[in-house]
């Protein structure tokens, strides 16, 4: 395991991105605009005029935006850690090409996550910029939410890379999005506090990394009280990164160099 090897994988990711950025850059800018417009401005006005305004003690748009940033990071990470990894393993076999060089599996994985981190930073900064333009947060509030959003994305990237490394074909990826990413997006406190959920579901929400990410982003950006100690949330997300990366190395090894 050398840093240099990982950096070369990051570099290759950047070179490929130079050719492919057009495919994703529109959604990077458009997604936050659409969500903040529909949910934050459109729905938000109703919430603020109804009972939501009083119980949130914040404009709904402001409540929503930082959590949505965490969710956007999760989605970007899921995108980068699923189909491209499957292509590297199976469809294009580019990982096989990399592993024929001095670069090994740990370096490949760390480099992959390093590149995803750069992408997540870009996606999150753009999102924070759009939040500011919408008047949901100030520039500093938006930027404060970027590091926890990147950490949230990284937790998912590591875990989903491990998940993808086990898959025989892409049907599992469709299930991942349908039964994993979408429910998490809806029920991890992005759109409403999880206290609103039936009591028996609530504990499950605490287990999802997205809830911790949403919580960190929102509280860090808006400076309001935490439900759980933020260090616990950070540690929990870091644990997902470390365990996910460890599993990903093992599973990629089994898959690629058996």
């Amino acid at each position, binding site marked *: 395991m050398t840093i240099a090897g990982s950096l*070369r994988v990051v570099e*290759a990711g950047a070179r490929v991105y130079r*050719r492919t950025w057009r495919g994703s850059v529109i959604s990077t800018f458009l997604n936050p605009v659409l969500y903040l417009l529909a949910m934050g401005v459109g729905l938000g006005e109703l919430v603020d005029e109804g009972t939501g305004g009083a119980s949130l003690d914040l404009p709904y748009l402001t409540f929503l935006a930082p959590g949505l940033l965490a969710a956007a990071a999760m989605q970007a990470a899921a995108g980068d850690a699923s189909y491209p990894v499957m292509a590297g393993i199976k469809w294009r*076999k*580019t990982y096989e*090409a990399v*592993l*024929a060089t*001095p*670069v090994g599996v740990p370096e490949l994985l760390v480099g992959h996550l390093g590149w995803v981190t750069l992408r997540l930073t870009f996606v999150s900064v753009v999102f924070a910029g759009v939040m500011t333009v919408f008047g949901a947060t100030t520039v500093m509030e938006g930027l404060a939410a970027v590091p926890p959003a990147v950490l949230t994305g990284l937790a998912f990237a590591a875990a989903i890379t491990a998940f993808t490394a086990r898959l025989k074909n892409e049907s599992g990826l469709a299930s991942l999005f349908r039964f994993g990413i979408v429910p998490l997006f809806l029920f991890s406190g992005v759109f409403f506090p999880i206290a609103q959920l039936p009591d028996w579901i609530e504990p499950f929400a605490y287990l999802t990394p997205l809830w911790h990410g949403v919580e960190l982003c929102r509280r860090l950006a808006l400076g309001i009280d935490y439900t759980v100690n933020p260090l616990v949330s950070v540690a929990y997300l870091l644990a997902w990164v470390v365990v996910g990366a460890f599993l990903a190395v093992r599973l990629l090894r089994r898959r690629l160099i058996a």
Partner: protein
Amino acid sequence: MVNRLPHPDLAALGHPALRAGNPTGTRDVELGTRDPPLGTSVYGRMADSLVQARNLTKHFDELVAVDSIDFDVHEGEAFGFLGPNGAGKSSTMKMIGSVSPLTAGTLQVLGMDPARDGPKIRARLGVVPQDDNLDQELTVYENLLIYGRYFGLSKSVIDERAAELLHFAQLEDRRDSPVEPLSGGMKRRLVIARGLINQPDLLLLDEPTTGLDPQARHLLWDRLYRLKQQGVTLIITTHYMDEAEQLCDRLVIMDKGKIAAEGAPRDLIEEYSSREVLELRFPVGTQSVNAEHLADIAQKTEVLPDRVLLYTDDADHAHARVLEAGFEPESTVSRRSTLEDVFLRLTGRTLVD
């Protein structure tokens, strides 16, 4: 020892055999000028074996892919693994490539142990895999660039080598075009060029012409032949006997994870087959009946589903005797013996099924 003349192309490429300080490009001089690789003192003389396998074994769960094989690959030779799909060739290649760990036995590559020195070994290998695992989104040049970077080469070094390698691979005018629309032959040549970017001491080619049309195959053979002439050590797996005969100085015939025979193509044919073969095609269902009666015309007969093979030193004479004896084959072909016949003799099966 064949006298190797340095080829201008590869001299420009700076191939190890032809680097500065080694104007003649001969092997002896080369060994004198290269830094001794790590482990040389431990494993003895590098000149003898670039690859040395003893009882090399690979299991995948229950499946025995490679079953305790021994072989040596010497510097400057083109060494082949000939065998049908599933014979264990690719598994052996992956172990030599220091990617796949051994299940048992010992393996030394460039005098080093793949388990311990994998990255160091891989730094000096060129690998041309069975699939063209190129980055389809990137251009031809960019593929060489990112690959060279994995070896830690600087961009200026890569640029210099890329120009020469694209010339060698006859892809100069495709330098900046994306990979995706290239023909199969072009992609394969690019993969070979990519495998040479680090000026490897040993080039591994896994089924280099599978899936290519005849014209593309011949072009590729020409390129590989040039590499061979320039003294690049090649290891080739193939299930095409013509490929093995054309390219390999020495080969092993593999079947079901074991080595069935080893030698130079001509020697193997001489040892295991007759000089010539007469192929007779009889009406469907009567091949074996006819074969029984043909036994004393040939040294040996083989019955295939669609034809009977008579092994003989004079196919035309045998043909005359077949007709004399009153047989009426639907068609006949007389030809020289090939490695296909050797394989058939050793295993009772054909190479390509």
